[in-house]
């Protein structure tokens, strides 16, 4: 029940944002081992993301990888920034709505003249908004 959800934004060369959301408590949590495993799973799914990006012209790529009982869903922004979500089988529409909301926040963030495109996101406001959206849609 308390399967942690991992949300990562990946740029061209490096991850730009990471948030681990524990569905049970709605906050960060999880022990170290499973966290590391989750990161590994997400990053190894990157190749599959590239592959499936060519198969569809929509931004939402649905589930690109399945590992054990977990699924990786991806959303590609117009600038090829990847939003990836590692979850334990949430509905597609729910994940799509979550991604769209985060996309809105991401666009507003990138309009900030002080934020350089494709650099790690340090804004606390952005993080709070993403967590709130995750709590709203995914818990």
């Amino acid at each position, binding site marked *: 029940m308390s399967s942690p959800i991992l949300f990562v934004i990946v740029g061209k060369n490096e991850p730009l944002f990471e948030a681990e959301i524990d569905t049970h408590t709605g906050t960060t949590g999880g022990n170290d081992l499973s966290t590391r495993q989750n990161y590994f799973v997400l990053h190894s799914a990157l190749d599959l993301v590239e592959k499936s990006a060519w198969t569809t012209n929509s931004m939402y790529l649905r589930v690109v990888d399945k590992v054990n009982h977990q699924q990786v869903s991806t959303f590609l922004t117009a600038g090829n920034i990847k939003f990836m979500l590692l979850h334990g089988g949430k509905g597609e529409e729910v994940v799509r709505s979550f991604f769209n909301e985060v996309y809105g926040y991401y666009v*507003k*963030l990138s*309009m*900030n*003249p*002080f*934020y350089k495109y494709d650099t790690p996101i*340090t*804004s*606390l*406001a952005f993080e709070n908004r993403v967590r709130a959206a995750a709590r709203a849609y995914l818990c």
Partner: protein
Amino acid sequence: MSSKSQAAQAGQALWAKMPKANAELFALTYGSLVTELVRDYEDPIEVNAQLDRIGHSIGVRCVDEFLSKADVAGMGLTTQCQNLRDTAEVVAKMGFKMFLGIQAEVGAFSQDQRCFSIYLQDNPLSTFVELPEDDPSGGEDLRRLKYSNLYCGVIRGALEQVNLKVDCNIVRDTLKGDELNEIRVELKEVLADGAGDDYKEE
């Protein structure tokens, strides 16, 4: 007071006649200007000074446009500003309204009537802007940056053309966490009408 609402109405009418620009484009242009200045000068105090100078150039030209448009429309300027209070009303209610479309308030007049504050509820220049967090590795402390310092320069430049030498400062800034933006304007001196030393008779 009737002069207040007169100024507000005149401001509204002037704003209706001005050509409009896209607010996001405007904000993004100003944002890139500021970040470019930050990259060039690095020191936020120096950037504030540069923004003030840029604003000064803008203000000097704005005041002419304002006076000509207000005159042509025949509104509100049949009587000259009698004192600083009137000037403040005109700057806030008509000037800011005409060029930016925002409603600005005046207040906090000092005892000697030589200082006042202009309050801006929303600032079109700082749409989407978030000042970056302090850089712990000792980079420029952008908390000292006055993002909207352009306004100070504009007010200073505009009032200088009508012979009022003022000092302007941003004392409260929504980007730094305050609820509204406050610009403090202090009258330094009323300049004598003159064409300057170059034109003095020998």
